[in-house]
């Protein structure tokens, strides 16, 4: 099946010579066969939330570091050697 592609550069000339062709319409079957595309807003939000979870783990790691560091400091300064 030959598809007619109308690009920006030849839009005017293509429209002038355009005649109806049933291949230009998508059938129900063709639509069903297409892979469904998720809503762009949902995809973007999911991507950002995944980034947020990564950020949370990194920041949580920093908090854990400070906790352990304070105990280590207490060990070396507070406990008599």
């Amino acid at each position, binding site marked *: 099946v030959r598809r007619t592609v109308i690009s920006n550069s030849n839009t005017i000339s293509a429209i002038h010579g355009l005649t109806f062709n049933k291949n230009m319409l998508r059938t129900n079957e063709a639509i069903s066969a297409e892979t469904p595309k*998720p*809503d762009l*807003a*949902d995809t*973007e*939000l999911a991507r*950002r*939330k995944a*980034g*947020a*979870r990564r*950020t*949370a783990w990194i*920041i*949580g790691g*920093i*908090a*854990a*570091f*400070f*906790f*352990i*560091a*304070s*105990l280590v*400091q*207490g060990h070396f*300064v*507070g*406990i*008599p050697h």
Partner: protein
Amino acid sequence: MSTAAQAIHHEEHHQSFFERWFMSTNHKDIGTLYLLFSFLMLFVGGSFAMLMRAELFEPGMQLMQPYFFNEISAMHGLVMIFGVIMPAFVGLANWMIPLQIGAPDMALPRLNNLSFWILPFAFILLLSTFFMPGGAPAAGWTMYPPLVLQGGDSVAFMIFAIHLMGISSILGSINIIATILNLRAPGLDLLKMPMFCWSWLITSFLVIAVMPVLAGAVTMMLFDRFFGTNFFNAAAGGDPVMYQHVFWFFGHPEVYIMILPAFGIISEIVPTFARKPLFGYKAMVYAIACIAFLSFIVWSHHMFTVGIPLGGEVFFMFSTMLIAVPTGVKIFNWVATMWRGSMSFELPMLWAIGFIVLFSIGGFSGVMMALVPADFQYYGTYFIVAHFHYVLVGGALFSIIGAVYYWLPKWSGHMYSTFWGKLHFWSSVISVNVLFFPQQFLGFAGMPRRIPDYNVAFADWNAVSSIGGFWFGATQLIFVGLVIHCVFFSKQKAASRAWEHAYGLEWTLPSPAPHHSFTVPPVVDDSQLAHGDVSH
């Protein structure tokens, strides 16, 4: 409508009371819970303050045993810091950050629910110590060993409560950082963010850095008290002064955790009612970052009299005085924002101006006590009490109340009574000075803090201070009535843009803000930001 938005829309209409308020993952509901909790705690901590001022109304012991006085003075500090100021700011962050950056919610909503619900249990643990054998811990909010270790088993409850509060604060801060760094609307660059978001982003990093250090300090204390270690036991070779260093490494940034969000709030309110963009937006951001950095290298100014080397004292004196520079930048910029503005004095603006004046008084006395020789005179006196109450009541609490007056129309969809609001403001601003200004005289005269009885020479100003205390406490009942009336009974509807010159994404939403907002990211118009177009 996106599939996520459809699901949210569906969920909104099927929440029972229990699901909405106990299992909520909605940032507005959790923000409301935080604010209600801090409001409740304000009256718990405030009642301790009233009891103390009643006992101090005249010399001699009138109402209570000295040990009980020590208990309520320690609990007053812990409740006000961890139960009022911090949760109130987190509540405001929960409500406003997603609205201001155009996010649909906080990045980690279930973590948000956990952060809040840890708090009530922490405070039940803490306050239950009053009913335990030996009573509540009575060594001040700083919990210095070895004194605090002489308490009963309630020390363990206090330590566990502090661990829980710390976990709550850390989880809340992780959520705020993750939200701001990942969920800003397209086009809202970091240096276009509202000042309130900036102040909370920086505050969150302070929380992440220092709350674990407090947890470490009290963990060592727990081990000393119950498991036979000697971190802070000088008799066994430990070092009690180390506790003070570790505590104040947490404690001084904690002071800024309680004031940086206030700076953000004032930077939102002043441009609205001066009808001008914020003066020096970037300088304000850098000043907050600078204050946050300096807060880590000044902690020993709380310990000048403990006996640290002279070089250390000089270093901490100068580093402390350095903080006055970025703080001065902020005060200057607020005043410059007002300069030649078309100012009007609605309630949020009154509280903001009250904040600037009272915080400056507290800040100036802070610079005074940064001087090592002077601090030897002030240390442990009521001058210190006056200083940090000017900063925390005149500063932090005033900004929180100002924020409630500023955003309440957005939250509730109603306007409040201006008459009662102005009565609340003027009564508060006068009584807070009657309460705390005389304490500066008492401190200069040498009256020590944390005592239930005192020399008769201090009687007059203590009586004045107590009158101011009862007056200030009673005045806050006006606030309770005003908020309840506004939320449930007011017939005056608030517009989307409740204030004429209020800019920012939150004002593009209807009032009250819908249960779920910005399910589709908004378009950011630089000219509609509170601080104006800063892109050039």
